[in-house]
């Protein structure tokens, strides 16, 4: 069991924003509706996938039941993307203040971090966004919202706290939860995860982050910028091990500039509590060290929520690691039941949950044949700079025998990045052989998450670099790097023979 660090978590009970959020995502006075005789679609889990499917299906006239165990909005709204991006924004601002002289501005004389204010702002914004996911809004859209534990009781039935719901089709969208690292003493010492870290109202003086994946990297940088003495331990040679090596290198440099204590190739092997301090033992190859901290945050991955659903009774195959087993049409081993989002997908992002839910609505309700594998899925790690990616990586292309060429544009070649003082980054676009077909791209930039959308659009619409080179990009923008990559592809087409012919033509035309 996970343990929260109560000393650091004291959101006042009368916090207006919290009251509003809970009123929206889990109204205290909610009465579950009387079930319909049979539902077109019964959805288990009201995270991004469940909410999207509920709205979409109800909007098309389907009778929809949506069952949620805890909060509407799921991890994304309550303990994921929404709160984390809110506090990252504040942490970026503090970093901007400290570096004001890099931008020709005076560093404020008294930069005092107001962590409670940052968290209050986060709660305010989270409550505001929760209005979209409010239970009453769903109900008024025609969705039967049930709060309670859902368990399948047969191939076409499920039970919610003693009430039976019958369905023609069902969708499992129960999401995922943080994995707990198997470290002796960690549970006893207490630790934070994304489920608890956003309840903090005081900044821990010293923080250790276990895991160099996206969540660990984002929050480690934020805590560091808030002024906590922050250590990040990653049991690999680089952060974000799935990403491009240069991207991870730039991130390591950025962390070092921030003053993060970076411990790569370091495994956390034990935690002890002595005199109120958490002492964390690290091993790097054969070197041992101990870090004393006030809080430990784990971000080592996520495991799908497939327990306590009685999936066996519905004939749905699953395992604890991969989650619910689905085919390319997101159908489970029970042809009536589909799955979407983190409960079944490798890429556990809000936007893939969203996209997979759209597939399920079409396939489950309208005999659709939409495939998961046809999706082009971008993702982004919201560190500073951000790291975004879409499509395949070069190592994947090489492994599949696809000839790949990468067009690299460092941001120090892009005027807007120079003017913004944001030159640590790049755009890399991978193309197939000598063609202009885009296989994938990685972008490292302040707003790489925004920039990757252009590449994703190009890939989905089958637009190659030849066409991108003709697209006028507003000057000066950092997205011009994409056009520069396309220009480089164009220049590569200019063979010596073509150059000679062009020169001869121009001589004749003089």
């Amino acid at each position: 069991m996970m343990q929260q660090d109560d000393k650091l978590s004291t959101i006042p009970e009368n916090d207006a924003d919290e009251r509003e959020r809970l009123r929206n995502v889990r109204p205290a006075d909610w009465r579950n509706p009387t079930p319909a005789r049979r539902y077109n679609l019964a959805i288990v889990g009201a995270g991004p996938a469940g909410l999207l499917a509920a709205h979409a299906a109800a909007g098309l006239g389907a009778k929809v039941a949506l069952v949620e165990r805890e909060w509407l909005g799921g991890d994304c709204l309550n303990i994921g993307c929404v709160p984390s991006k809110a506090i990252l924004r504040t942490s970026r601002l503090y970093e901007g203040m400290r570096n004001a002289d890099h931008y020709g501005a005076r560093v404020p004389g008294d930069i005092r971090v107001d962590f409670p204010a940052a968290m209050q702002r986060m709660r305010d914004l989270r409550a505001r966004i929760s209005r979209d996911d409010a239970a009453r809004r769903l109900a008024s859209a025609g969705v039967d919202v049930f709060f309670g534990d859902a368990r399948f009781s047969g191939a076409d039935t499920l039970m919610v706290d003693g009430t039976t719901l019958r369905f023609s089709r069902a969708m499992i969208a129960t999401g995922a939860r943080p994995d707990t690292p198997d470290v002796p003493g960690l549970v006893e010492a207490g630790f934070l995860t994304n489920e608890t870290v956003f309840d903090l109202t005081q900044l821990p003086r010293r923080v250790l982050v276990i895991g160099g994946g996206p969540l660990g990297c984002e929050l480690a940088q934020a805590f560091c910028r808030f002024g906590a003495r922050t250590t990040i331990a990653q049991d690999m040679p680089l952060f974000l091990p799935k990403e491009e090596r240069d991207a991870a290198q730039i991130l390591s440099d950025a962390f070092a500039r921030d003053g993060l204590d970076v411990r790569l190739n370091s495994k956390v092997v034990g935690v002890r509590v002595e005199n109120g301090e958490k002492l964390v033992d690290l091993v790097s190859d054969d070197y041992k060290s101990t870090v004393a901290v006030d809080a430990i945050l784990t971000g080592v991955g996520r495991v799908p929520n497939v327990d306590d659903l009685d999936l066996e009774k519905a004939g749905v195959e699953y395992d604890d690691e991969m989650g619910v087993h689905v085919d390319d049409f997101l159908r489970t081993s029970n042809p009536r039941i589909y799955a979407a989002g983190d409960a079944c997908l490798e890429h556990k992002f809000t936007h893939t949950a969203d996209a997979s839910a759209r597939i399920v609505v079409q396939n489950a309700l309208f005999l659709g044949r939409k495939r998961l594998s046809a999706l082009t899925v971008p993702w982004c790690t919201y560190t500073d700079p951000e790291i975004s990616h879409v499509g395949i990586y070069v190592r994947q292309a090489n492994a599949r025998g696809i000839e790949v060429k990468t067009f690299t544009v460092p941001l120090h070649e892009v005027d807007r990045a120079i003017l913004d003082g944001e030159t640590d980054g790049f755009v890399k676009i991978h193309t197939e052989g000598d063609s202009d077909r885009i296989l994938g791209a990685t972008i490292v930039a302040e707003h790489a998450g925004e920039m990757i959308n252009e590449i994703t659009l190009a890939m989905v619409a089958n637009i190659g670099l030849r066409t991108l080179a003709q697209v006028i990009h507003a000057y000066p923008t950092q997205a011009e790097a994409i056009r520069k990559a396309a220009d480089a592809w164009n220049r590569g087409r200019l063979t010596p023979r073509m150059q000679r012919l062009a020169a001869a033509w121009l001589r004749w035309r003089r």
Partner: protein
Amino acid sequence: MNDESNDEDLLDGIERAAFGYFRETVNRANGLVADTTREGSPCSIAVVGFALSVYPVAVERGWMQREEALELSLVALRFFRDSDQSGSTDATGHKGFYYHFLDMQSGTRVWRSELSMIDTALLIAGALTSSMYFFGETALEAELRVIADQLYRRIDWRWSQNGGATIMQGWKPESGFLHYGWEGYSEGIVLYVLALGSPTHPPGHDTYKAWTATYQWENLYGCDFLFAGPLFIHQFSHAWIDFRGIRDPFMREKRSDYFENSQRAIDVQREYARGNPRGFAGYDEDCWGLTACDGPSDADPDVSGEQRRLFGYAARSVPFGPDDGTLAGWAAVASLPFAPETVMKTARTMVARYPAMLSDGRYASSFNPGLIDMHGNIWVSPGHYGLDQGIVTMMIENHRTQSIWKLMRSCPYIVAGLRNAGFRGGWL
């Protein structure tokens, strides 16, 4: 004197001074050579590999008697043959590999260093160079060849894969294999060629393919090339292997070769230095050399009058860093075979601007023109590093006479390794 003879004199001076490092730092009792000239420096096995490779150069240039070169080489090879291969914490090696750093006197492991695959490869490349050069029928030269063969054949390359697809970077008796291997183009190509030439313990037949599957072919600054950021990566394997015109499957697909690739790497370095995106002092197209080298991390932060992150010994890299304004003059000179005219101009410019990078005619590991002390002196890495002197000697020699390339073209293990890796064409 004309420019050509001027260049020749300049290169002769640099090469001879670089060679002098080995004569001055070798322990004649066991053939081990110090990693650096700094007080208490241990031996680096890679530096011994360079030493074994440059003794023949010195003989041919008349800087050393053949007998002395033979003696120094034999002493070193005998030491490694007879060394403790138990893999214990204070042994010298294990499975035919050796610990990266050894005590200069006892030859046992120091600094809890790792059993190093790449540094063993550089040592063995030197041993094979030696065995190719000392081709005489005397008992001593015959003995040298036998030992070099023994050392090569006993390396268990398959073991170094630890069951994986590629060769691991190292192993420690306390913790086993370092849990990362080689990824992306690197100086490891000589390691793979040597491994694949082994008649006794070769790696799996897909090893080279698995390694090259991590390559990244990029268009950067208008140059198409196999990307690697630090310059030494584009040099080290070329010290022994003549890559002109020979191509593995990857380079055949790209219609290039590794020699041409190093030329592009120089173009990229020059373009980066010309653009100088981080605004460091001294950088321009005739002043470059970002590579693995010493750095000013211990320098007094006040001397520069600016806030900047400084690194110690690190693989400085183009274009994404790390870069703290530190350059290596030797890295430019070690690029000589790839672009002689450009490099000569660069070498002259750099030394003229920053003569302090040379002491006793020998390149310091690095210098930083932006870090100036109260006496107006730029920061220069103290002393000298053996790796730098080795690559400078070998690459100047390859530029002048190609003698090491010619020797190694006849080395059956190198030839077999290249062929097994899929190299074809050219001299092969």
